[in-house]
C-alpha cells in the first residue's frame, strides 16, 4: 500500500462523492418542468461516445510504441477484443478474450 489507510479511505470517498454528484445533480437542478437549452441537448448526445474514446486512450497512455516491445501486447489484445466483439457482439466474451490474450503475452511471451 502506497497510501495510509486514512488516505485510501479519503480517496475512495472522494471518488464516490464525484459519482454521486453526477447521479443526483440532474434531480436537484431540473426539478419541475424547466426546459434544457438546445446546446445542452446536443452535448447529451455527443459526450458519451467521445468519453469512451478518451477512456480508451487513457488506459493506453503509458504504453510506449517507439521502444521494444512496441506495444505489441496491447495492439494484439485490443485487436482481439474488436474482432471478438464484431463477431459475437457479446461484451463479456470480448472483454475476457482480450484479457486472456494480454495475460498470455505478459506472463509467457514477453517474459
Amino acid at each position, binding site marked *: *500500500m502506497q*497510501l495510509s489507510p486514512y*488516505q*485510501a479511505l*479519503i*480517496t*475512495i*470517498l*472522494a*471518488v*464516490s*462523492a*464525484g*459519482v454521486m*454528484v*453526477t*447521479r443526483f*445533480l*440532474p*434531480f436537484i437542478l*431540473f426539478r419541475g418542468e424547466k426546459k*434544457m437549452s438546445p*446546446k445542452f441537448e*446536443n*452535448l*447529451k*448526445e*455527443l*459526450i*458519451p*461516445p*467521445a*468519453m*469512451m*474514446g*478518451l*477512456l*480508451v*486512450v*487513457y488506459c493506453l*497512455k*503509458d504504453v510506449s510504441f517507439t521502444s521494444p516491445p512496441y506495444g505489441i*501486447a496491447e495492439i494484439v*489484445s*485490443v485487436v482481439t*477484443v*474488436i474482432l471478438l*466483439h*464484431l463477431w459475437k457482439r457479446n*461484451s*463479456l466474451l*470480448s*472483454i*475476457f478474450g*482480450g*484479457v486472456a490474450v*494480454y*495475460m498470455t*503475452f505478459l*506472463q509467457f511471451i514477453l517474459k
Partner: protein
Amino acid sequence: MKEDNKSIIREAFTLSVPVATGFLPLGAAFGILMHSIGYNWMWSAFFSLVAFAGSIQYLSISFLTSAFNPINAFLVSLMVNARHLFYGISLMDKYKDSGKYKNFLIFGMCDETFSITSSLEIADRKKRDKMNFYITLFDYSYWVAGSAIGGLIAGGVKFNTMGMDFALTALFVVLFLEQMLKKKNRIPGLTGLAASILSLMVFGSGNMIIPAMIIILVVFFFGGDRLCS
C-alpha cells in the same frame, strides 16, 4: 398483495440475470486487483458499496497506487461519470416521484440498471417503482458481492494477476466500439479519440484527462449544431 410482491421480485430478478453475468466476474476482477495492490476484500467491498461505479473504481486503482491527491480523484470521477447526468435527465420522469425509493434509485443509477429501467414500460406507478427498486437492488448486490468474492479468492489462492487490469481497457474498447457501430456517434467518438491523443502528446500521460475534456467540450460547443444535424 403479498403474491403480487413476489411476482414483482421474480420478474426483477429475471431481468437482472444478464447483469449478474457481467457484474459478478467484473466485480471479482476488481476485488482481485484491489487485493494485488494491498487492499483486502473489505476494502473492495466497501468501495463497491459506496461508489457502485465500475469504470471509475477500476481507474481508482491508479489513484490508490500513486501520490495522495483526492481533489484530482474527485475531478476525474466527475468527468468519467458525466454520462450519469444524461441518465438522470432521461430517467427524470420515472424516478422523480418514486417516494421512499427515490434516493436509492438515483444512488444506484449505473449504466446497466439504466439500460433496463429506462426501457421498461409499466403503467401502474406503484408497481413500476417497486420493480425499478428491485432491479437496482439486485444489480447493486451482484457488484458488491462480486467485489468481495474477488478479494476473498485472491487472498486464498495464489494467482498471477499480471495483466488482468487489461479488463478495463477491454471494457472501454467494447463500449467505444458499440458507439462506433452507430453511425451518428462516429464523428463525436473519433473527436474524443483524436482530442485525447493530442492531449496525451502535448501534456503527457500524467495530465491528459482535463485538457482532453476541455478540447472535446470546446469542439462540441462550437460545432455541436453541425454534428447533431
